[in-house]
């Protein structure tokens, strides 16, 4: 709003700059004396000649000649002024001028500005953008903010820990690897940190496991021999190095007893097949409705089917309550309640899920994503 007020004020001032001189009636006395201006110049020149003569810069004959010349110009200027009759001041052009100032100028300026400008876009000074509430900031701004903070406090391990996975998801594995290295240096190594650093290094290297990444994975396995992710990358490395037999063995050990729904499993199976091994058949480890249940549900009436689904959902809920479960299972439960039109239960399940994964950021992220997708408010 203030913008428009100021724009209006500026336009008004500009119009006045035209209107005021147009409407000011000048008396004969106030008129700028046109020919008098050049007469003044010639008079000064005459004085100059006198001074030059007095100083002896020119001799008398030259001075006389010059004086005659200037006097002639002075006379001509004088005659011109005498001859000049006061002109009739056309009111038509005055009216045109006023119309230009009042109508054409604002219309033209505003029209052009609306065409070119972005009046709805506020100023966005960097400092204000970085101080704005977190919710209103884009990921890039948040990153810039953390980067600024880290530039000032490079010893803040938590800061590096926050930004490292963000770099990864923004497609900047080099920066991510550097950040993980800082996390490990400042907060000490854990299996996850060392593995994630190795992963970032591998991504930065176009998927080829370099020697340094490899040593990171080996270090992770040294800390936890059962960890899946570092072993996955080590198997990959073996394949890349051409040690086919060792690679096949590594993949087979890895796939032993693995949950087929894990995202890495299909990759591992494909890799194993490529190397010439036979991927093991995997048991369904995640309990769900069996084929018989599904067929039965298809033949039931609507009410019965609803009852059956409700029963299954209650079963899932009860099991998760007592035994706990994976994020995927909690997501399924929340989704089921939402689809069944029971938002209260969905919210309750959501809260329980969040309690269950209190500190696991990755799991919370997945659950929150589902909640958002379903339009549930995340507390």
């Amino acid at each position, binding site marked *: 709003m203030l913008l428009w007020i100021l724009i209006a004020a500026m336009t008004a001032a500009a119009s006045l700059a035209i209107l005021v001189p147009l409407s*000011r009636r000048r008396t004969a006395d106030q008129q700028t004396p046109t020919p008098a*201006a050049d007469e003044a110049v010639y*008079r000064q020149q005459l004085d100059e000649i006198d001074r030059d003569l007095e100083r002896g810069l020119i001799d008398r004959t030259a001075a006389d000649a010059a004086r005659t010349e200037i006097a002639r110009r002075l006379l001509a200027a004088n005659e011109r002024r005498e001859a000049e009759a006061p002109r009739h001041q056309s009111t038509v052009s*005055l009216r045109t*001028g006023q119309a230009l100032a009042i109508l054409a100028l604002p219309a033209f300026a505003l029209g052009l500005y609306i065409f070119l400008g972005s009046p709805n*876009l506020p100023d966005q000074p960097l400092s204000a953008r970085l101080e704005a509430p977190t919710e209103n900031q884009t990921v890039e701004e948040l990153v810039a903010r953390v980067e600024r903070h880290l530039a000032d406090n490079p010893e803040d391990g938590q800061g590096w820990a926050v930004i490292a996975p963000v770099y990864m998801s923004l497609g900047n594995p080099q920066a991510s690897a550097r950040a993980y290295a800082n996390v490990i240096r400042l907060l000490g190594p854990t299996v996850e940190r060392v593995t994630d650093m190795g992963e970032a290094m591998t991504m930065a290297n176009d998927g080829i496991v370099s020697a340094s990444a490899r040593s990171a994975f080996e270090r992770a396995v040294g800390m936890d021999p059962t960890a899946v992710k570092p072993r996955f990358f080590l198997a990959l490395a073996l394949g890349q190095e051409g040690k086919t037999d060792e690679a096949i063995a590594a993949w087979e050990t890895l796939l032993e007893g693995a949950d087929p729904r894990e995202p890495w499993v299909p990759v591992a199976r494909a890799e194993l097949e490529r190397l010439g091994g036979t991927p093991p058949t995997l048991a369904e480890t995640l309990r769900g409705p069996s084929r018989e249940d599904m067929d039965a549900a298809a033949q039931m009436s609507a009410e019965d089917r609803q009852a059956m689904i409700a029963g299954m959902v209650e079963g899932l809920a009860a099991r998760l309550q007592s035994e706990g479960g994976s994020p995927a299972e909690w997501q399924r439960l929340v989704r089921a309640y939402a689809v069944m039109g029971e938002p209260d239960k969905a919210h309750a399940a959501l809260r329980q899920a969040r309690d269950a994964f209190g500190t696991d950021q990755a799991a919370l992220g997945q659950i929150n994503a589902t909640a958002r997708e379903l339009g549930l408010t995340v507390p």
Partner: protein
Amino acid sequence: MIVELGHYALVLAFALTLIQSVVPVWGAVRENERLMAVAPPVSIAMFFLVLLSFTALTIAYLNSDFSVQNVWENSHSAKPLVYKITGVWGNHEGSLLLWALILVFFGALVGYFGTNLPAPLRAATLGVQGWVTAGFLLFMLSTSNPFNRIPNPPAEGNDLNPLLQDIGLAIHPPLLYVGYVGFSITFSFAVAALILGRIDAAWARWVRPWTLLAWCFLTLGISMGSYWAYYELGWGGWWFWDPVENASFMPWLAGTALLHSAIVMEKRDALKVWTILLAIFTFSLSLLGTFLVRSGVLTSVHAFATDPARGVFILVLLCLFIGGSLSLFAWRAPLLKQGGLFAPISREGALVFNNLFLTAACAAVLVGTLYPLALDAVTGEKISVGPPFFNLTFGPLMIPLLMAVPYGPILAWKRGDLLAASQRLYAAFGLSILLTLFTFWLWGMEKVLAPLGVGLAVWVMAGAVAEIVTRVKLTEVGLARGFARLKGLPGSAWGTATAHFGIGVTALGIVASSAFQEEKVLTMAPGDTVNVSGYAVTFDGAAPRQGPNYIEDVGHFTVRQAGVVIAELDPSKRLYPARQMPTTEAGIHTLILSQIYVSLGEPRDTGAIDVRIYYKPLITLIWIGTLFMALGAVFSMADRRLRVGAPKPAARRKAVPQAAPAE
């Protein structure tokens, strides 16, 4: 909001220029007082609007507001404050805004101070200035708008070209622009005079302070640019005949001729054709320079924009302004009656001689600049016209001109006496011969031409002093009275003498530094010492160093004279990683007027490094001379006869008849 306000101010200023282009000019032609009266307030309103616009952009730079595309492209939040400000004009759009600001600034100056001008001339001049401004604002708004926005701005900007991150570049462009663009007002005066058909001696007097002002700034701007090239480019040269340098030098040559030609027109009502044409060409050459720099025809530090659409737009503007003003000239040519007659040997004759040589020199530079471009456009063949061409064309033209300089102010108007004038210059002539012989004795047959060059420079300087001495007849009236008369001399006399003296000083610097410089190009290991013109320069070693946004290799040198340490120099080679650009920083030690200049080349694996060491005698005189020239312009402007009227019409009218106090 500030950004958008700035944008609107620019648009509104453009709307005003359209009115300014029509209403006052129409009023001047129809002699309608009220229509003419519109021009001064509108010119001032335009100035404030463009100033607001410029301020808004500057604020956006200071705040790192990357929602403005121009800021995002050319700034970085970590850049030092001073480069955030200079970054405003360190790019195409921003520098155009500075162009426009100076255009309207000169318009506002004429609008505010031009009360001694006849109303029609003032109105028409401001109207023509409005045409030029309209052309440039349209150019900005249509192809190079600095206020384009980005709705979802990135978090960090692209930074400024590292070569431009230098304090010299903070001062050089504004100075140069004030000069460059300042000639727009003399152009407007000339076109206005052509429109009104009133081209006389009084016109020349009114234009003179504006020409002087623009010329003064242009001189300083070129000089600054030259010194920057000298210490930043690392080759020890101070002028490269680079097309962009030429683009600023050509308006200077034409402007210098204009300045002299206008004197004749003012005093004798003669040389009108010369003066009007020079006024048109000086600004046209400024526009040509802008075209060369902005169209992408040239590649250099200055070539911010390499967008063909922009080049075509400026070319069209160029053709419109030059073609339009020349057609107007052709139409009004019959009005340009020859005023006073004069003999060839006279002050007028000397100034015609000066005009001829300056324009010929300007034409030589123009050919040398445009010929390679034309050849490339026509045949596709790439050639480069370098210093040899200019030294062979420009140099010989300057020699007779410098020889004639002392005669100009001493010859009488109308019919001069060469013999009498020579008698007044006996002392100057004697001094220059003496110094020629002295230089010859110092250097012997080794350098034959150099002593003559020194003699020529001394001749010009001594001639300038002789002019003042003979003007006050110091030798005849004695010191006491002579001194009193010195004070009484008009400012323009002091201006002439000072500027001419400056020419001599610059010439001396050029001759001495190029003829007697000693250059050593060698590879030095740490501990090595090399002797340059009696100074022992020791290389102590090199070390890498981390700057705020660059890394550099710094060499450390100690300069000793007869075993005594007189200076320590730290030249460096920098690399700006953001743009992968190397720059060199020369180490310079100034010994009163001479300089020792050390510049680093490539480092060798052994710890040794390639080094260029120069001893440049009297080199600072080149730039000191330009200061004298600018000072001369200031003296001339201070001449009370030229003083533009203060904006108090009532008081002024009474003052005019008495405005010729006995000095």
